[in-house]
């Protein structure tokens, strides 16, 4: 039963585990290693890890249905791998002088491993274990600017809020077990009757998910944590961690909680609208680039929720497609913020005045990323966002389209504020000097730029995702 099948199905997790062990061996075995050689090695390994994901995707289950995988899951993991690789390359400037670079990667890859198990889970407890593995090391990562007090504050906020959300999840899971007697994803749909206790359990579970993807009203930790944590970690949080949570959320709602679709449609719809509205309104007044991106990522979560609420095959395909685009565009924006922060220490919108005159390439990367987040063509975000909205409006709810359209105008305003600072304004004080980048961050940013610009023109990417995504 086990044997070769195990190696094929859990291939992505195994490769990741090998990388983690290798790093641990280096850490314990050698006292003298230079950061640059570690970074070279890790980035190469991450590239291998990413490419290995494309080899022979297989369908199947392991461990008595605890673990499952298929083409869609493999693609989702590949997207997360891509995000991690880009984050790692963009963090080069910050990590090359850091004292604990190996620990950083061990923690980072452990969380990624947790996310993989979470996505592949076929049982709610397995899912919960993956979730914890994905959250707890992240708190340590948020604290990785060891000298900064803000960084430990961020870590503390993250661990408390994530413990709270885990509590909600566990409560929901136990209620579900109490009413159905099973936690297997394959058993649950038949056992769900939509009774009041089950609805309560569903609400608790959705609340737990909402924490992870920072949806209103569970978004309060987001801005503070993103601001305090090192930019590399914030980028990882906002893209990879959120992406993983969204993937599981869709899987859970579309396959497991399908009999209760009427109940969660309303919840998701209201949460989605509130999330985009509040995220956007708060973003308008931010002065710090990190906080701006934090609130923008809350608003994006609102769009994702709206897409999920569409409950159709187009809905699930659009969500995966959007996350792929979101990885590229959000990492473009965070990547620039990350190098600027690492090399000049500046993080406020005012500091970006006159940025275009000194750093044209970085300005363009940032601007295109922001346009993509705002949903302006030809950037890929346009397609991602519109497909989500089409999925959401598929139920015939036009109030939604109107609210979303209004939100896009608000969002456009604050993204343009940053573009305006970079391109139009003259610096009041000394502008950020011309930054000399290593080629790692350059490649990382380049992938984001090219991906954001071109992805929308290849319709068959969407078609492929559509063909394998979860029908409803």
């Amino acid at each position, binding site marked *: 039963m086990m044997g070769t099948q195990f190696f094929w199905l859990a291939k992505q997790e195994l490769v990741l585990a090998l990388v983690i062990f290798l790093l641990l061996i280096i850490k314990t075995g050698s006292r003298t290693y230079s950061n640059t050689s570690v970074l070279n090695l890790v980035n190469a390994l991450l590239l291998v890890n990413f490419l290995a994901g494309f080899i022979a995707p297989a369908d199947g289950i392991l461990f008595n249905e605890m673990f499952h995988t298929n083409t869609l899951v493999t693609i989702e993991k590949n997207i997360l791998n891509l995000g991690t690789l880009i984050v790692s390359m963009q963090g080069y400037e910050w990590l090359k002088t850091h004292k604990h670079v190996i620990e950083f990667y061990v923690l980072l890859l452990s969380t990624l491993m947790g996310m993989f198990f979470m996505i592949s889970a076929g049982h709610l407890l397995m899912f919960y274990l993956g979730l914890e593995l994905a959250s707890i090391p992240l708190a340590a990562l948020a604290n990785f600017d060891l000298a900064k007090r803000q960084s430990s504050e961020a870590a503390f906020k993250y661990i408390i809020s994530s413990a709270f959300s885990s509590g909600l999840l566990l409560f929901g899971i136990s209620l579900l077990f109490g009413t159905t007697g099973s936690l297997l994803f394959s058993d649950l749909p038949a056992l769900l009757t939509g009774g009041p206790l089950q609805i309560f359990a569903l609400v608790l579970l959705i609340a737990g998910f909402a924490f992870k993807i920072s949806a209103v009203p569970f978004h309060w930790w987001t801005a503070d944590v993103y601001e305090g944590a090192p930019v590399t970690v914030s980028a990882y949080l906002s893209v990879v961690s959120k992406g993983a949570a969204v993937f599981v959320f869709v899987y859970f709602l579309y396959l497991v909680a399908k009999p209760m679709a009427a109940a969660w449609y309303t919840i998701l719809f209201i949460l989605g609208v509130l999330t985009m509205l509040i995220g956007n309104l708060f973003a308008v007044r931010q002065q710090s680039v990190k906080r701006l991106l934090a609130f923008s990522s809350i608003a994006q979560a609102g769009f994702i929720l709206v897409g999920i609420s569409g409950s159709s095959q*187009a809905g699930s*395909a659009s969500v995966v497609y959007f996350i792929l685009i979101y990885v590229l565009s959000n990492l473009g924006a965070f990547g620039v913020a990350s190098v600027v922060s690492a090399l000049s220490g500046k993080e406020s919108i005012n500091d970006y005045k006159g940025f*275009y005159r000194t750093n044209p390439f970085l300005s363009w990367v940032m601007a295109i990323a922001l*346009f993509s987040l705002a949903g*302006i*063509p*030809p950037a890929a975000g*346009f*397609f991602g966002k*519109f*497909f989500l*909205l*089409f999925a959401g*409006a*598929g139920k*015939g709810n*036009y109030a939604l*389209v*109107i609210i979303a*359209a*209004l939100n*896009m*105008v608000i969002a*456009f*305003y604050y993204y*343009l504020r940053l*573009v*305006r600072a970079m*391109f*139009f*304004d003259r610096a009041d004080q000394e502008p950020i000097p011309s930054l000399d980048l290593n080629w790692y961050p350059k490649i990382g940013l380049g992938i984001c730029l090219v991906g954001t610009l071109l992805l929308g023109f290849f*319709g068959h990417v*969407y*078609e492929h995702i*559509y063909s394998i995504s979860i029908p409803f």
Partner: protein
Amino acid sequence: MNLSLLVILPLITTLLVLLARGGGQVKAIALTGATLQLLLALFLLYAFGKERSAGDHSAMLFQANYSWFAPLHIYFHTGVDGISVAMILLTAFVVLAGVLVSWDTSFQTKEFFFLLVFLSAGAYGFFISLDLFTLFFFLEVAVIPKFLLIGIWGSGKKEYSAMKLALMLMAGSALVFTGLAGIYFKAGGSAHSFDMMQLAGGLIPVKVQLFFFPFVFIGFGIFTALFPFHTWVPDGHSSAPTAASMFLAGISMKLGGYGCLRVATFLMPDAAQHYAPWIIALSTIAIIYGAFATMMQTDLKYINAYSSVSHCGFVLLGIGMLTRTSVTGAVMQMVSHGLMTALFFAAIGMLYSRTHTRMVAQLGGLLKIMPFISTIFILAGLCSLGLPGLSGFAAEMTVFAGAWQQPSTAYRFATILACASIVVTAVYILRATGQSVLGPVTDSHYEQLPDAKWNEKLAGILLMAGILAIGLAPFWLQQLVSPGAEQIIQQAVKSVTIK
């Protein structure tokens, strides 16, 4: 002929611009690209005429259909009728003239020409699209280049103007999007479609039309300075660099007019009929308000910007009147105004780069010093006030003639009011041109200023040729546009007779 070439050619040009080294190469590439665009557009006109005279009377010619996002029924469906061909020609003229007048750009040359040529790709894509999604895509593609062109290379309160323009246009797109989503989901039962040719012909239920028509019409209306959403026009135009002003007023505002016609009126004829009084009222206000507001302006760019509000009012008036002649006139007015306003902005730019002022009161006696620039300046003015023999007359006359065909007293009253605005136009145009180029020389250092250079002359001649070609022989344009207008109107008229 493959219509995608119209989009591919500018895209290749932008790519080459990016790869070019130095300002000289960039300009040479941009100029070559823009010239090829014009040749391509002229060839399209020729091929279109040949096809039509060979007896092909299908609604859209040169259709092609490529799958883009098949699961969502999104296709890149292209095709043109006479209206689109006219708009494509206009675009090609203005882009080439715009590249020519920007020849002396020295700051960030590469980015400037990149954005300028990129804009034209958006405009062509918009005019050839028969799929609502791609049409919307190209409409939005053009927003960011405008924003950057004004903000980086503009003058005056450019940051404010750029933000205002971008946000208002974005709001317009948001409205259009809402309407398109409604059409997509509500038309023709369960088979969702963005294809205009499928949707046309009353497939959209009347109730849906009545609800979504205002979204689409106002959304596109913002682009074409529909009163009271015209406020971005004066600020945007006056802060933009010359070529961008030409592009904004010459092409970008026409995207809105074309959208009002092709999407709103063509697809939702019942609603167009229903809302016609509103459209006519608003456009009459725009015509008169624009004319009087222009009277109060002292800055040449503001004069032209406010007069654009007034002139674009004629476009909307023609659309609102819903007769074959009036819609033909609306399209002719779009082309005519595009050429005329581009020429006007080009002349103002040339004057400004020499005298460093755009204030009417500070200029004077320039005709003797710069005969060429002053001549095109006066000519653009005369075209604006509707002098027979120039394109403005032919276009506005057609609109009036078409509008008068509507028997309703209120409509005729609106037509008379709109006609009367021409007197106001004459006042402000004659005052502005007279004061700035005739009379005594106001500043002695003007005496040494040079006349137009080769590139400026070429741009001026090009646009002038267009204006004269329409003004002296309007019938070719009328015949080109009229069948398309007929097709759009047919739906609306049919819907009345059924009731």
